[in-house]
């Protein structure tokens, strides 16, 4: 047995539940009499909804296939070797479940080395090798092809990426080394760093060809046939494959620097993966592949044993799996059909909701407001947005006509909502106003209609308390911008019944939102955590720490934006309002900052002034600086960070004790999808656990070992 085979056998024992990919070898006669050819098909035996992955046994299978074709190639029995995938899927890389199970650095190293050892054999055969990217190719799937002599790609290929950095890894089976040596460092940085950090952006087949990763592009209908005809022509010398010359000069350094700037912009140095990948890309300039592969192995093993990757996989599983099966949601069979939606209010938020409901549910949506001018303005806004979609080609004329036809306005609630199944209110955030609106709506809607509120901080239970049927009321809390942020906090009030709640979850699914069930507690999840977090920043500023120190203190977390920039986005007035609500509920933990109140009173939109020359580094607005009344307690960045993280950990601990959500996982899912908190933090609780904050504050970790960390 070869050492590679032994290595993989050992790894396979650690991962007994691997979904094993077979590597079938089939011999064909190439067209044009080009000779006998061995075609390897990667296939896990399941349909396209279960994409082919590489675990240790799968790699061992490929290794065995290569043993066979290597002999045939050496004996002159075949003229070439090809590799392709099952229908619609090439291969989507390493099996993450296997990665999660790894406990020891040496095992992680073995997985990296095992992949390299198998894949690189494809470049050392006595005959040329060809990869045919027929369908989705990611990570190790992309990489196995990079080891081949030539590549073709299908125009129908929907997704091609090296997503490792997105998760917290490096492309570790050749991607960091081979890609820059194939298409140059700049394009490699785009694929490995830029796309990956841009929410794991996928390339389409034509782009894979344009980038020079594939030598030929063929349409999906007869992709494999045309690839094999092309192969025959290459092998016979009738087609010459010409690739662009790679610039190994200054362009290489510039590319790496560009990659670093992208990484800084996204993770602010807080997650190591992108930087490790860039180091390897930088070194790959000398063309020494083996040296690069060794560096990949080392980086892979280090990252696999690190908290950022474990958090990344945890976060990935939250958004991929938990988001699809909301914890605590009632049986979906209880959900009632929603064939018409009512929206109370025709302001900006209400109009955005109307647009979203119309686009996703494709049922009539009626807006109401207190006067005709407001109603008209709301409808006009929605129609205008539909026109923009039409202009951008996102919908065609027929669809635009249909959507516009769905959205109307009415002054008379009885006429508007008489046959509505779901009515959402987005009126002024004041209990009395909302109670009055709900009472009016209840009087006119059918008995089964669900009444939903988009309140961000008021008690849904109290809002429902004056109704005849309070069991029909749910909280339906969207995040701004509504069209972009996936999170929807669905609030179960004291009397909400299962059918209404099930209907709310069903609507959320149709809206393509990530629904999380939350208890009717002040500010629910995201606003409560964010307000506590920002409140603590505000506290230290109020006590005397300079604004820049307070801001810099949380930079190592790699949040999408600094606290005060976030405040600007939310709007200081809204921030103040939420802090007042939470202060009312929990006065000991949530203060109302007099400085923030002063800023709001002065009508300032934020703390900073933004200059066109340097948009990334805004300066403190001197007018705001003049308003600030600070104490004389000056903390260091580290002290600030500790205070802020302690506060967040305390709040999350209390929220879990109160049962605001089912588990810490839901808090992380909310923060990822509602606040854009990063994967490398796993939302936040994995980070608080691994930094020791949760134990310091609450006496225990939020998550069991192995959930978002190296298993014990």
């Amino acid at each position, binding site marked *: 047995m070869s050492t590679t085979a032994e290595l993989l056998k050992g790894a396979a024992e650690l991962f007994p539940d691997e979904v094993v990919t*077979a590597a*079938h*070898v*089939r*011999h*064909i*006669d*190439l*067209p044009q009499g080009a000779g006998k050819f061995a*075609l*390897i*098909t990667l*296939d896990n*035996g399941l349909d396209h909804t279960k994409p082919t992955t590489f675990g240790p046994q799968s790699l061992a299978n490929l290794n065995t296939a290569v043993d066979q074709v290597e002999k045939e190639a050496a004996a002159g029995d075949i003229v070439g070797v090809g590799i*392709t995938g*099952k*229908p619609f899927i090439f291969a989507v890389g390493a099996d993450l479940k296997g990665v999660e199970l790894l406990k020891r650095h040496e095992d992680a190293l073995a997985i990296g080395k095992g992949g390299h050892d198998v894949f690189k054999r494809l470049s050392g055969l006595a005959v040329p090798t060809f990869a045919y990217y027929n369908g989705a190719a990611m990570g190790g799937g992309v990489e196995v092809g990079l080891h081949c002599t030539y590549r073709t790609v299908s125009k129908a290929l929907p997704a091609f990426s090296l997503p490792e950095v997105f998760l917290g890894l490096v492309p570790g089976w050749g991607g960091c080394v081979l890609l820059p040596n194939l298409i140059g460092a700049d394009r490699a940085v785009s694929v490995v760093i830029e796309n990956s950090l841009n929410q794991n952006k996928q390339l389409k087949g034509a782009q894979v060809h344009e980038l020079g990763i594939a030598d030929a592009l063929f*349409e999906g*209908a*007869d992709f*494999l*046939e045309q690839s*094999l*005809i092309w192969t025959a022509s290459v092998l016979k010398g009738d087609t010459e494959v010409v690739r662009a010359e790679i610039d190994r000069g200054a362009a290489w350094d510039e590319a790496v620097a560009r990659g670093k700037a992208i990484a800084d912009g996204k993770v602010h140095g807080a997650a190591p993966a992108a930087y490790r990948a860039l180091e390897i890309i930088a070194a790959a300039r000398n063309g020494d592949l083996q040296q690069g592969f060794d560096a990949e192995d080392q980086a892979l093993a280090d990252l696999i044993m690190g908290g950022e990757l474990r958090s990344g996989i945890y976060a990935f599983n939250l958004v991929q799996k938990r988001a699809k099966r909301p914890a605590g949601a009632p049986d979906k069979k209880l959900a009632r059909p929603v064939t018409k939606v009512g929206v109370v209010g025709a302001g900006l938020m209400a109009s955005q909701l109307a647009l979203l409901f119309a686009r996703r549910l494709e049922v009539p949506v009626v807006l109401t407001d207190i006067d005709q001018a407001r109603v008209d303005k709301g409808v006009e806004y929605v129609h205008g947005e539909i026109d923009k979609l039409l202009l951008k080609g996102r919908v065609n004329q027929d669809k635009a006509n249909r959507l516009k036809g769905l959205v109307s306005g009415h002054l008379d609630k009885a006429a508007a909502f008489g046959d509505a199944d779901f009515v959402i209110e987005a009126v002024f955030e004041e209990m009395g106003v909302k109670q009055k609106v709900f009472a009016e709506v209840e009087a006119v809607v059918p008995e089964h209609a669900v009444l939903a509120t988009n309140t961000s901080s008021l008690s849904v239970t109290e809002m429902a308390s004056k109704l005849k049927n309070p069991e029909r009321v749910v909280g339906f809390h969207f995040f701004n911008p509504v069209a972009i942020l996936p999170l929807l906090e669905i609030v179960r009030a004291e009397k909400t019944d299962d059918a209404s709640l099930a209907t709310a979850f069903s609507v959320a699914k149709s809206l393509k939102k990530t629904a999380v069930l939350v208890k009717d507690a002040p500010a629910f999840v995201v606003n409560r955590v964010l307000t506590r977090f920002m409140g603590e920043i505000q506290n230290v500023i109020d006590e005397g720490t300079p604004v820049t120190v307070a801001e810099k203190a949380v930079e190592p977390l790699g949040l999408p934006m600094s606290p005060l920039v976030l405040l600007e986005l939310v709007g200081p007035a809204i921030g103040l309002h939420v802090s007042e609500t939470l202060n009312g509920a929990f006065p000991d933990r949530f203060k109302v900052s007099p400085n923030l109140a002063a800023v709001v009173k002065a009508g300032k939109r934020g703390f900073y002034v933004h200059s066109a020359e340097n948009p990334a580094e805004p300066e403190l607005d001197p007018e705001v600086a003049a308003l600030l009344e600070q104490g004389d307690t000056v903390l260091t960045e580290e002290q600030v960070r500790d205070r802020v993280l302690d506060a967040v950990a305390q709040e999350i601990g209390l929220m879990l004790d109160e049962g605001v959500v089912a588990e810490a996982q839901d808090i992380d899912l909310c923060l990822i999808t509602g606040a854009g908190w990063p994967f490398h933090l796993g939302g936040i609780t994995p980070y608080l656990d691994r930094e020791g904050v949760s134990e310091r504050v609450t006496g225990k970790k939020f998550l069991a070992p192995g959930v978002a960390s190296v298993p014990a």
Partner: protein
Amino acid sequence: MPRTARDVVFVDGVRTPFGKAGPKGIYHETRADDMVVKCIRELLRRNPDLDPATIDEVALAATTQIGDQGLTLGRTAGILAGLPQSVPGFSIDRMCAGAMTAVTSIAGGVSFGAYDIAVAGGVEHMGRHPMGEGVDPNPRFVSEKLVDQSALFMGMTAENLHDRLPHLTKQRADEYAVRSQEKAAKAYANGQIQADLVPISVRRTNAEAGETGWGLATADEPMRPGTTLENLAGLKTPFRPHGRVTAGNAAGLNDGATASLIAAEDVARELGLPVKMRLVDFAFAGVEPEVMGIGPVPATEKALAKAGLTIDDIGLFEINEAFAVQVLSLLDHYGIADDDPRVNQYGGAIAFGHPLASSGVRLMTQLARQFEEQPHVRYGITTMCVGFGMGGTVIWENPHFEGNK
């Protein structure tokens, strides 16, 4: 408004390699629609001067229009092949003569002026759609003795033909079959077949059928080169004890697809498309269903009469070899020798296979190539028998004809 009939030409034709139907056949896991789609795409690739948007119609035949052969295949295959949505299509059925009827129907439309250029072809995946799948014959056929009970079983109709023409012995049928295999092998060796084949990717997940994974079909699977009379003598006669029809002197059960481009001659010339054959005339005729193999005789008589030609004018014959006896019956009718060199020069369905509704265009593609090779020949025919007692014959003129030198 007076009309002038236009000359209709066969521009080009291609086919998939034919496969053996059944779990071990190369196409067992391949969809029928994909097969014909790939033929259409190959036609477009081979004729880059043809703007796909100018195709006026897609007529595709299948006998069993169910599942991947249903859903108005002419339309759906056009979309799957990437033709513009403006190109319409329809499905057509005349059992074995499906593709032939697709060509003649289109030809009628071209001649009339309704079409300038169109796609005509057919597909039959007899593995996915065995003969008789889903049929529901009217009980009156039997109760009123409208047809003999054997009429629905093609092998039995071939035995009936042997009965009618007892001098067409099993020996002669077997000898004919051996020659068909020999001629087919020779045509392959000369590269006369492969040039019009479209390679088809074929997936196999059943290890009992052979190597698994993706493969490529590049040659006809049913071929049995080296077949001898001795091999054939011992074969079973499945349709009748001590009968004459065997798997060796008949075409098998097969999977395959074909497609052709049919155009008005002036349009083809204007677009610079090849003109491989010129349509002279065609005819279909009915016979007693229980001896359907005799169908080509009246069909050929009718077509020749309409064209004002006699059998002596025909220099090349492409006769579908559903059964050897059926070929022999036509030759016998005209006093042509069993081994006449003008007949099925590349061999026939006994060697290549006969995926019912696709075969008509295979005959045409082969005749077209023979025309090109033999400019001294002016006329040729493609002819075939059809289930339920029919025959079809198309007479073609060789545009490469150099005159009676």
